[in-house]
């Protein structure tokens, strides 16, 4: 009999711990000059250093240090004046040296925090997630195990190794334990990863693409009886590849732990793998017997000792924190909460802001990006930033509508043309002939023809039946191929037939 989430939180308090691995977007790898571009042919982005050839030596990528410091500063950490790399020794075929160079007991950033907010039935709730450390390490290669049932090394027929990823700079951000989230633990976990992702993106240090693995989250979860002091045994869930999965994984683990505990069984301390399809986790490597990685200081590298003045220079370049920026923009643009949330979900904040910065009205700019443009993006199965329309184009279209040079209907055609690659709004208007007909004598001639064609309708209007005007306006619009300003047509028609036009 499986438990409901409500059963779980009535009895237990969850304690979280989150480890996020971020692939930095430096041009070259952590310890050599090889390219870091994603998706290259296997083993084409390698050299003696990242292949662990005999005699080859690592040299630290200065840019990776800079990115790590920026991350630490953005997470309110102290930057340690002296940090070191160590070797983590274990044998695995995708690790060329059979040790990983990683910061161990002397990380580059320590003791920070990140505040996250979640929207609940009880209103907005704020949680502080304390950061224990931010440290640098190198990624491993990738193994592809062919044959066998599990896709894992045991039981496979053979394995293929790709070392393109070996040596990509990674930053690991580790939280302290996060108690006190209660029933909101899954949402807090998701909000933390989302906020962290936004910060990393605003710093420009990583592509933060969870689906490509450039941001990976390991979620540690344990339960204890409400009111208990001692922590329960934790499980560590890996392979959590989306924000939604973070939430599902935490929730799922809480239920699984509670079921075990209720049956009087114990939770095994182990790595678990999240299954996207089922939302469940399956057992991985047991951590009951702590592996001995025989850490010792990496003798091939010298300590990292960033200059205090350099740290301050970097601090001065920190961008506005995403939460604060969102609040500021929401108030500047007077956006209702729901629509703000929609804009954030659509990842449209940057592009709308850019459009507004080019002079467009915020409401109009938002309307275009989240309306027509998002609709086309959805149709094409891409994101709005993938389309061939820029904030400059949208700002121009907004201006043309405001000046009366385009109607909304015409503007939609312009948007479509720009996205179709027909050029700037001006050239689409030119080539498609979309200019508003503003020549009033031409409009009057069209109105006369419409009245002549439908004399009974005209008569109704003359008798004060205003709603009948729609048919004549429609006829004029049809004749002008929609390029007339319908409001102006209405005005002229009603005046002509002796009726008030407003």
């Amino acid at each position: 009999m499986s438990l409901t989430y409500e059963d779980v939180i009535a009895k237990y308090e969850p304690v979280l711990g989150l480890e996020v691995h971020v692939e930095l977007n430096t041009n070259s790898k952590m310890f050599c000059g090889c390219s870091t571009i994603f998706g290259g042919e296997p083993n084409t982005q390698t050299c003696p250093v990242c292949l662990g050839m005999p005699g080859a030596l690592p040299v630290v990528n200065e840019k990776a240090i800079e990115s790590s410091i920026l991350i630490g500063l953005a997470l309110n950490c102290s930057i340690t004046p002296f940090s070191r790399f160590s070797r983590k020794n274990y044998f695995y075929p995708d690790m060329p040296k059979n040790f990983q160079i990683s910061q161990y007991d002397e990380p580059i950033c320590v003791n920070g925090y990140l505040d996250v907010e979640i929207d609940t039935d009880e209103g907005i709730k704020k949680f502080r997630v304390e950061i224990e450390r931010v440290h640098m390490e190198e990624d491993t290669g990738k193994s592809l195990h062919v044959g066998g049932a599990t896709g894992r090394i045991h039981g496979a027929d053979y394995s293929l190794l790709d070392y393109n990823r070996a040596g990509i700079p990674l930053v690991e951000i580790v939280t302290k334990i996060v108690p006190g989230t209660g029933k909101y633990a899954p949402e807090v976990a998701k909000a933390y990863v989302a906020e962290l992702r936004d910060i990393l993106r605003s710093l420009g240090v990583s592509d933060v693409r969870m689906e490509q693995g450039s941001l990976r989250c390991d979620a540690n979860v344990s339960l204890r009886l409400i009111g208990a002091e001692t922590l329960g045994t934790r499980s560590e869930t890996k392979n959590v590849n989306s924000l939604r999965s973070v939430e599902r994984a935490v929730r799922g683990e809480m239920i699984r732990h509670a079921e075990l505990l209720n049956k009087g069984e114990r939770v095994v301390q182990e790595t678990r793998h999240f299954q996207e399809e089922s939302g469940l986790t399956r057992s991985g490597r047991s951590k009951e017997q702590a592996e001995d990685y025989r850490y010792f200081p990496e003798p091939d590298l010298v300590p990292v000792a960033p200059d205090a003045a350099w740290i301050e220079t970097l601090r001065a370049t920190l961008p506005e924190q995403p939460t604060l920026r969102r609040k500021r923009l929401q108030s500047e643009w007077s956006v209702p909460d729901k629509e703000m949330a929609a804009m954030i979900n659509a990842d449209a904040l940057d592009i709308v802001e850019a459009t507004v910065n080019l002079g467009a009205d915020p409401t109009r700019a938002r309307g275009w990006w989240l309306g027509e443009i998002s609709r086309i993006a959805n149709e094409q199965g891409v994101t709005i930033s993938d389309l061939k329309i820029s904030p400059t184009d949208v700002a121009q279209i907004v201006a043309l509508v405001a000046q009366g040079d385009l109607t909304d209907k015409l503007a939609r055609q312009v948007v479509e043309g720009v996205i179709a690659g027909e050029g700037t709004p001006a050239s689409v208007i030119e080539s498609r002939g979309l200019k508003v007909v503003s020549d009033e004598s031409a409009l009057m001639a069209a109105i006369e023809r419409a009245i002549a064609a439908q004399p009974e309708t005209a008569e109704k209007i003359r008798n004060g039946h205003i709603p009948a005007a729609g048919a004549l306006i429609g006829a004029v619009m049809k004749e002008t191929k929609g390029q007339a300003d319908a409001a102006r047509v209405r005005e002229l028609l009603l005046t002509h037939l002796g009726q008030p036009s407003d």
Partner: protein
Amino acid sequence: MITRAAHEMSAAMASGEISSVELTQAHLDRITSVDAQVHAFLYVDTEGALAQAQSVDDARARGESVGPLAGVPLALKDVMAQQGIPTTAGSKILEGWRPPYDATVVSKLKAAGVVILGKTNMDEFAMGSSTENSAYGPTHNPWDLTRIPGGSGGGSSASLAAFEAPLAIGTDTGGSIRQPAAVTGTVGVKPTYGGVSRYGLIAFSSSLDQAGPCARTVLDTALLHEVIAGHDVHDATSIDAPVPQVVRAAREGSVKGMKIGVVKELNGDGYQAGVRSRFEESLELLAKAGAEIVEVSCPNFEYALAAYYLIAPSECSSNLARFDAMRYGIRVGDEDGASAESVMNLTREVGFGREVKRRIILGTYALSSGYFDAYYGSAQKVRTLIMQDFNKAFTSADVLVSPTCPTTAFKIGEKANDPLAMYLNDIATIPVNMAGIGGMSLPCGLAPEDGLPVGFQVMAPAMQDQRMYSVGAALEASLLSQWGAPLLSQIPALVGAK
């Protein structure tokens, strides 16, 4: 010609007396005639050597200016990666591996026009003091073929003593340049740690390894030192500072006004009588040449050997983890159904020799959780104490001196089954590596009781390598005027040699 010093060969080429191709061919012929007995070389690159010699001759013919060692042949210790040339580090596990890149030292040698004759024998992964640990059989000391040529760089030093090459590259982790130099009557220098790039040097113990020059004279050693030294962006531990002026110091060879400190702890009990007497005579010669001889004490040196045998194995246990059959070298047991783990195990079982396994096991143990502080941690503290001993000693002396080894060359097989006795051979050389400073060994005569060469060690503070060359050149000149001819002129002729 092949018995001359490298700088004399260079002069002979400059004057047109001989071409580099002729000089190289003469050395290749010598190797052909004597190396079956000496076994200094694991691989001879006849074609590559002659091609490099030809290109130097061509450059000279075009009137281009070439470096002071251009066209001079050299023997390269097989621990340095050379592109396309078999490189084994004396181990079976790397049999057949041809590196896809050049070590920085090799690039510098090539750029300087030095002719690389081939790769020399060594103790497997530079672990040993006799070259008996080579997977490819021992090297024999040209002074007495039944004796060891020292190690780990026995091949390099033996090639010099056998006149198979006038220059050689060695590497020194605990004495692997200086001890072979001492027991073969040649010169060898371990530069300051970080003075010569380690990029491409197959690591034994990263914090101790240092490549250096070997030759038959102090000046030749200095010339080679200048070719290979200098900052390298590919080695994070390489020192970004000008190379000490070692050639100038070797040419001047002056010790006037220098204070030379004799390390009390590196003499006396346990040192062979003939070693001590030759050492004492050398001190007298240096005093006559104008140096002031003082005694210094380095009380923590007695812990150096024990600490070394924790640090070096610890680092080696990690450095040698990469030899797993996945990417290069031999692969054993790769049959249907064999797991990666079993292939790794079998390959390492077959590919590594006894001494290497011994040290991997020692190091794995010393780094284990729960033992780390007691072993690796304590050893690092000893290392600091040794540095402090040196620092203090260098406040009262410009250089420190000692015999390089407690004894002359021992018999092949004599200590093969007694690792501790073997390790003790490096008692006087290890402190230098632990402190990261420079050390030189040069010949100071033959021990009367066995007629074998004795080495004199000079130690200088970090990045003051030129001081070793001042002292070495001064002592060499005094000894030469006493002997009338270089020590190596007394070496017994090898059977079959021309």
